[in-house]
């Protein structure tokens, strides 16, 4: 039999693999939600999923379209208010892993989801901060998932919505932040991890069939590759089957993709 997969499936599988059964995970909608539930349905059955709508230890059978679908509440251990979620659970330091996307990212994994162009007269107004700035500082570590392009992987952000590694080095520590920040940037082409010293996001694993030049072409800064770069393991039959099954159930339940 042959395995074939989409770039999104690859990103989802790689994200899922990075999760452990002991993780308490702050889940965003879309790919992060698929990745977390894939992990739960495969190698990390005891992973705790938390959505910012207040649902704690939820076990949805289909993927939610929003972070507050009824399914999340129906299958949760309990559901708390949003102020409590942000105060006791996120700021309280109870979350081990958070997922974040961005419209723009720079080489230190700072993120922009606010505006393209000047703040007061934007070319494109994006949704804004949401929970991201505090998710980035309060979770034990952060996985960023984004498809690569020169438009989104930029030399300089139009707006720093979310502080990743700042200017690199010990910038997080200098601001008094004790969490790790972005430890992985998972794209459709490869996986970046921060250089231990400079914190510049550095390619450590390349997805099967992707050339280094493709990565460089799709990145708006000169890409650094680690001394040893692995080839990302292919999605397994089980991973793909579980993920596709999850999406099929979701489509049947919602009439939409999830």
């Amino acid at each position, binding site marked *: 039999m042959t395995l074939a997969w989409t770039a999104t499936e690859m990103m989802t599988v790689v994200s899922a693999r990075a999760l452990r059964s002991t993780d308490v995970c702050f889940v965003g909608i879309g790919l992060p939600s698929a990745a977390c539930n894939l992990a739960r349905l495969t190698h990390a059955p005891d992973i705790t999923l938390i959505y910012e709508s207040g649902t704690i230890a939820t076990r949805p059978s289909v993927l939610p379209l929003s972070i507050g679908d009824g399914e999340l509440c129906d299958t949760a251990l309990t559901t708390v208010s949003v102020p409590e979620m942000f105060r006791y659970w996120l700021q309280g330091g109870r979350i081990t892993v958070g997922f974040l996307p961005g419209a723009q990212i720079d080489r230190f994994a700072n993120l922009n989801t606010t505006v393209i162009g000047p703040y007061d007269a934007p070319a494109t107004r994006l949704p804004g901060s949401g929970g991201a*700035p505090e998710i980035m500082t309060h979770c034990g570590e952060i996985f960023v998932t984004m498809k690569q392009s020169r438009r989104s992987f930029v030399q300089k952000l139009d707006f720093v919505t979310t502080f990743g590694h700042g200017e690199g080095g010990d910038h997080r520590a200098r601001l008094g932040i004790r969490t790790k920040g972005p430890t992985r940037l998972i794209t459709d082409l490869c996986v970046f991890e921060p250089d231990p010293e400079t914190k510049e996001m550095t390619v450590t694993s390349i997805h099967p069939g992707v050339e280094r030049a493709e990565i460089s072409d799709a990145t708006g800064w000169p890409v650094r590759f680690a001394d040893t770069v692995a080839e990302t393991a292919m999605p397994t039959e089980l991973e793909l089957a579980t993920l596709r099954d999850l999406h099929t159930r979701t489509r049947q339940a919602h009439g939409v993709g999830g």
Partner: protein
Amino acid sequence: MAHIMTLGAAVAAVLQDGDTVAIEGFTHLIPHAAAHEAIRQGRRDLTLVRMTPDIVYDQMIGMGCARKLVFSWGGNPGVGSLHRFRDAIENGWPHRLELEEHAHAAMANAYAAGAANLPFAVFRGYLGVDLPKVNPNIRRVACPFTGEELAAVPALRPDVTIIHALRADRDGNVLIEGILGVQKEAVLAAKRVLVTVEEVVDDLGPRSPNAVVLPTWTVTAIAEVPGGAYPSYAQGYYARDNAFYLGWDKIARDRDTFLAWMKANVLEQGPEVFAAHRARLAVAA
């Protein structure tokens, strides 16, 4: 004590032009019917406060109700852009929209501070980011014991808060269950409060001793509007209409399509249309 009245009378009683109004509901229990009534009554110059402006404020902004928006995430959840919100900010249509922009943690804490009658909220946040450069309502305060600097924002104290809840009893006590969002805080922070409910019942019925109940003396007006949260949902009554959220993208993208939709579905209708949505999306209680 809450007065139980029609939606039209309730909106007229609590909401005036120029008010600061928080319409809350975090994905669950978004009071769409009440927002439609405010649009029909032609409210203008409102300061709209809401963590996630969502379709409900996309409609109010597009219909010209808003002078200013206080918010922390302006998207169509799980879908993409809010086109009326974007058109107002990017192009000033139908008119210029003033922004006070926060992160979720700030808004949630600011509502809680308002409910607690504090002038400001303290939290760990806004480190290394650009929002404090464009929002003078983000400051820092030093811990008087450790010297550590923390983020501070003013408490939110809306003139009016509008929410949707599951049930009220005839005395006007209101029950909320499921995803709670910031509704309780938004209610307790406000001067006047309108709650639309799925049903008014004789008794709130068996419930947890710690159920989230708003006593009648925290509420100004209650209106029974079955289905009033549609296309959002009410736990145990009806499901979220995910297809509508997807479809909104197309409706709202174009000004004329939007205006035609609002005319046909809001301006020329009344709150009674929401009951049919509830019936269509009903879930087993």
